[in-house]
Structures are given as C-alpha cells and as structure tokens.
C-alpha cells in the first residue's frame, strides 16, 4: 500500500526501498520544473543553447532527479520524515531517459526523542548507469 506507515522497529539494515520509476523524461517536465523551482537555465530548455555550450543537447536539472530520489524516500518513509538528503550528480539525465530511484537501509540509531534510519540512495537510467548517488536520513516513529 502506498504511504503505509513505516515503524523504526520494523526496519532492518539491508532492507530495500520500493523502486520508484520516473519518466521517460519529456521537455515539458523540464519546463514545469524550471517554473516551479525558478531555475531557468536555458541549458535545460533550449537545445541549440545546450549544444553551443558543448553539452550535446538539453539535459534535466540535477535537482529534478534529486526530487525523484526524495520522493522515493518519502513514498516509503512518509512525508516530513527526511532529516538529511545529500547527493552527487554522477551523470546527465537526457530527454527520453527513464530514471529509477532506489535505496537501501545502511544503519539505524536511536537517541533521545528520535529514531533515525540512514539510507544509501541512488538513481539509475535505463542502461543501469548511476545518475545520482547519495545518502539520506529519516526519522521514523517507534511502535507503541
């Protein structure tokens, strides 16, 4: 079930997040993301500009892919649970690419008032090349 409650007690190191598949990426999504984020760099909109800049054509905002990764985390852990999300943009996402976001539990820790779960997160394209790699920390409720 989507948005099911995940409890700290039930999470084990090694658990994998359900993969989130996004795309194929279309120009309209890059245009919408530009408007929503305020990042109007023409390199994501104007193919001629992107070619002249030596980028071989339009590519997606890194922040769009990071947003996808954030969604993979919150689809699993719940909205408002993310305490840290940090990524490196490893490769460009192009139009027509399909981006699959994944994650895996790497550590659990319990301190006063917070139960934290550390995740390794990444996104890959349809050729299984990593386009985003990173880490996330979510705060989960305890049972009972």
């Amino acid at each position, binding site marked *: 079930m989507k948005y099911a409650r995940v409890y700290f007690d039930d999470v084990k190191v090694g658990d994998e997040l359900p993969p989130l598949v996004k795309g194929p990426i279309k120009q309209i999504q890059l245009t919408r993301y530009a408007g929503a984020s305020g990042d109007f*760099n023409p390199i994501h909109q104007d193919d001629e500009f992107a070619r002249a800049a030596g980028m071989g054509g339009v590519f997606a905002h890194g*922040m*769009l892919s990071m947003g996808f990764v*954030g969604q993979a985390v919150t689809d699993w852990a719940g909205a408002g649970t*993310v305490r840290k999300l940090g990524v490196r943009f490893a490769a460009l996402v192009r139009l027509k690419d399909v981006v699959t976001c994944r994650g895996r539990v790497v550590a659990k820790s319990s301190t006063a008032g917070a139960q934290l779960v550390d995740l390794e997160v990444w996104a890959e394209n349809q050729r299984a090349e990593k386009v985003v790699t990173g880490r996330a920390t979510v705060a989960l409720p305890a049972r009972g």
Partner: protein
Amino acid sequence: MAIQINRGLIGKEYPPYPVTVERGKIKEFARALGDDNPHYLDDRVGAASEWGDLIAPPTFAVTLRDETADTTAFLKELGTDISRILHGEQEFEIFRPLQPGRTYLCRPRVVDIYEKTGRSGPMAFVVRQTAITDDTNEIVATMRGVTIVRL
C-alpha cells in the same frame, strides 16, 4: 581558453533575504516532480496532520531564491557565465519541514572554491551554503550546493 575563477569569494556572506512560502508554490513544485503525496497537495490532509497544514517536499528549499538578486551577477562576480556551470552536489539538512504562509530568512555564503581536473578537463568547484531560519530565529534547514564551473 581557460577562464579565471575569483577565489576571493571564499567566505563571502550575502545579505540575508526573507522568503514567504506560498501554498500554490508547494503544490506546483510537487506536481512538477510528479509527486502526488497528499501532504504536499491536499489542504485537508495537511490541516489534519501533525504539522497542521501542508508541508513542502524535502528539496523544496531550492526554490527559496532572493527575488531582488540578479542571478547572473553572482556568476559574473565568480568570473563565469551560465553556459559553463553544472550542478555537482546538493545536500539538505531539515530540522522541520517548510510550510505555507511562513516567512523564512535565508543566509547564503560561499564556503569554498577549489579546482580539479576531471575526465572532461579543468573544473572549479564552488561550495555554497544557506542557513534557513524561521520568524523566531530558529534554524529550520540548511542547504549546501556544489556548482561546477567548466574552465
């Protein structure tokens, strides 16, 4: 021809700027990602939640821009332009989700600038960090971004 990056910006703090988060902006951002989580989109779900209103997705803080600043001015000051930059890394630390109708104060600064030669040639890495506080001066989030300049 290689360009020269202005490393003199290391440590520079920019004037703090306030941003009021708009309800529609949170929804627009979630929809642009294709994320249909009701905590970002459904006012009633928000009102009934532990936060008492909608919350923003984890990467929403990137939208908190200084409306009065000229975005090309920073790149010019750095010694480059928009056609040479790439987003290298991004990180958010979130103490509390951002919410609609609230005004936050953003304090950006340049943390570091360093150069490296990668597969595609010489590059400069510009590390910027922004602290985000609420109207009680409590820290709500920090964001750290690395911009790559192709030299």
